[in-house]
């Protein structure tokens, strides 16, 4: 008897080849047969009329903290995602000395918009080394995790406060190499670094103080393991991004390692820039380099309220300063003070085209419920004021708890985004899962890939889209035995309806430690998600607790 049989589905195996009707049999966590299976299974899944594909792999997340209180990475798993890569953008949660914990929380708060209270109430800090962190999360995983180690963490461990002030000495470089080896031995999938991020005091994160010698020293270590380098480039400037592509290409060729950068957006003001970046990527691949641009599927939607700092205002210092460094009362007082308010409004004249189309999405008071769902232009007309004044007045009336949506801010020319996603050297990713929890939902990008770019724009075939988020990702990231439905491969599987899979509407839910809230989206059209041969979630039974996720690629010399 088999452990699990998935019957009568359309097997889209992740290779990009056409789907075919077959059963899939699983024993001992691996796929043992694909075809007509007479043998019964201890558990059977009826997949008639549905697609059976490898589980999806999300290569750009920040689930580092969430995995400490939620081994499913909810609700990512329900969208068919069976493997997540946390630790992007130079930030991981290990290796981390106890004395640096709050410093790192500040960075996560600033860069990934993760609330401090979630760390304070949801995290039991009982690790320092990467090995200890991996063992800590590995105890209770129902999703697979391929964690990157953050370059800023290596610097902070070795150089302490100097990590944010200067380049490393030769002995510090050697210490970072030793530390990176320890992390890779413990199961890190690669190294992440950032050229753009700032900490909570708006100082450059440690990785930005590294010179070329340091990056080369770390890539020497990655070369020993054949592991990946992920970077965040200056994505808002095509010329700088091209320079980073060249930098990555040289590292990739010299050290024989794969590299990836994220994000790459198609915006109205940079469409030519994206073409130039992709031309350079093509040239560098032709030269033998591996430089994978990561492109997200969803358009840019940003929600905000003034109770927490929003990166939407980072280029407006008088707004951002008070949101970042001021107290709740400081923000209220800034809006109440006529002179300060006037100065703030004057500073954002470049946003004058934006304000009218922002939409009020939620408020606390009964009096203002009438405005929910209306644009600031509509509200301003009803209240006989300007859109920006309407937003500020509502924020005051709601004690800063008026939530506003800036929708369709970019990356929403679906024909162009679809063409980019279908490019053979574009890596689908950059969901930011687990981060920016009060700005937007980072869940459902895979569903959106199918609904928008397979069914709507037809930029990709069903098989092509599955390949993009399964075997392509496994190959790029060096995850053996994953990403394909082939005999002998690990049974990470998604069962879904090809004509229905989608992301549901974005909504606000209070499920973050410390009574915190976040934006999420439910899956649509996903039926069953299998991790390591066991059902981890199904539409009928919900989350189950018998699936055991693993850390990938796992300890060197160990079994994943």
């Amino acid at each position, binding site marked *: 008897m088999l452990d699990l049989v998935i019957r009568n589905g359309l097997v889209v195996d992740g290779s990009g080849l056409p789907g075919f009707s077959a059963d899939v049999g699983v024993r001992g966590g691996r796929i043992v047969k694909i075809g007509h299976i007479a043998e019964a299974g201890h558990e059977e899944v009826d997949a008639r009329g549905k697609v059976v594909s490898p589980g999806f792999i999300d290569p750009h997340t920040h689930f580092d903290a969430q995995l400490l209180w939620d081994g499913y990475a909810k609700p990512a798993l329900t969208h068919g995602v069976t493997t997540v890569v946390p630790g992007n953008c130079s930030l991981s949660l290990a290796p981390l000395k106890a004395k640096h914990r709050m410093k790192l929380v500040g960075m996560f708060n600033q860069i990934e918009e993760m609330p401090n209270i979630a760390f304070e109430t949801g995290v039991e800090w009982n690790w320092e080394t990467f090995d200890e962190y991996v063992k800590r999360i590995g105890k209770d995983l129902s999703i697979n995790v391929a964690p990157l180690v953050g370059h800023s963490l290596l610097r902070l461990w070795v150089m302490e406060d100097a990590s944010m*002030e200067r*380049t490393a000495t030769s002995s510090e470089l050697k210490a970072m190499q030793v530390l990176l080896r320890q992390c890779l031995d413990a199961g890190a999938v690669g190294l992440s670094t950032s050229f753009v991020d700032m900490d909570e005091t708006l100082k450059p994160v440690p990785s930005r*103080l590294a*010179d070329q010698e340091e990056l080369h020293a770390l890539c020497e270590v990655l070369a020993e393991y054949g592991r990946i380098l992920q970077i965040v480039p200056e994505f808002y400037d095509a010329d700088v991004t091209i*320079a980073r592509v060249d*930098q990555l290409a040289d590292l990739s060729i010299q050290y024989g390692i794969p590299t990836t950068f994220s994000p790459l957006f198609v915006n109205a003001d940079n469409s030519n820039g994206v073409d130039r970046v992709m031309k350079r990527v093509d040239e560098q691949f032709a*030269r033998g380099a591996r430089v994978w641009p990561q492109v997200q599927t969803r358009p840019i939607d940003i929600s905000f309220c003034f109770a927490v700092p929003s990166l939407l205002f980072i280029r407006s210092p008088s707004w951002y300063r008070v949101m970042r460094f001021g107290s709740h009362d400081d923000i209220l007082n800034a809006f109440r003070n006529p002179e300060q308010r006037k100065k703030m409004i004057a500073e954002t004249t470049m946003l004058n085209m934006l304000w009218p189309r922002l939409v009020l999405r939620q408020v606390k008071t009964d009096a203002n419920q009438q405005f929910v769902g209306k644009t600031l232009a509509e509200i301003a007309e009803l209240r006989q004021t300007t859109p920006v004044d309407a937003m500020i007045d509502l924020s005051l009336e709601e004690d800063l708890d008026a939530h506003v949506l800036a929708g369709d801010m970019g990356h929403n020319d679906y024909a162009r985004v679809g063409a980019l996603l279908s490019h053979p050297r574009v890596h689908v990713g950059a969901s930011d899962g687990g981060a920016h929890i009060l700005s937007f939902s980072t869940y459902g990008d895979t569903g959106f890939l199918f609904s928008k770019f397979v069914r709507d724009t037809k930029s990709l075939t069903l098989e092509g889209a599955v390949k993009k988020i399964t075997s392509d990702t496994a190959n790029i990231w060096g995850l053996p035995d994953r990403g394909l439905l082939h005999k002998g491969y690990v049974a990470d599987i998604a069962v879904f309806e090809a004509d229905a899979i989608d992301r549901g509407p974005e909504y606000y839910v209070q499920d973050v430690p410390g009574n915190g809230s976040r934006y999420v989206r439910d899956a649509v059209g996903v039926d069953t998600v299998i991790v390591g041969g066991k059902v981890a979630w199904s539409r009928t039974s919900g989350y189950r607790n018998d699936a055991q996720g693993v850390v990938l690629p796992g300890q060197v010399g160990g079994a994943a």
Partner: protein
Amino acid sequence: MSATLSAVRRSIFPSADDTWTTIAARELKGTPEAEAVSLLQSWNMHVFMRAAASMGSPRAGKQILPSDVIFVEAPKA
């Protein structure tokens, strides 16, 4: 494997001690210092627009980070 790379805007990675002035002297030889610095700053707004390191930092007053890309020519038309 070999392939021809098309011409892109020329850039350098600064050394840890580099300033606008040292890069100007090295990369824009023959151009008067003040003019060279001004040109560099105008070609590198992604660096020039950022706040300099604060007093008390070993990098006090510096804008350029060792990881930066610094363009040494104007954007291509």
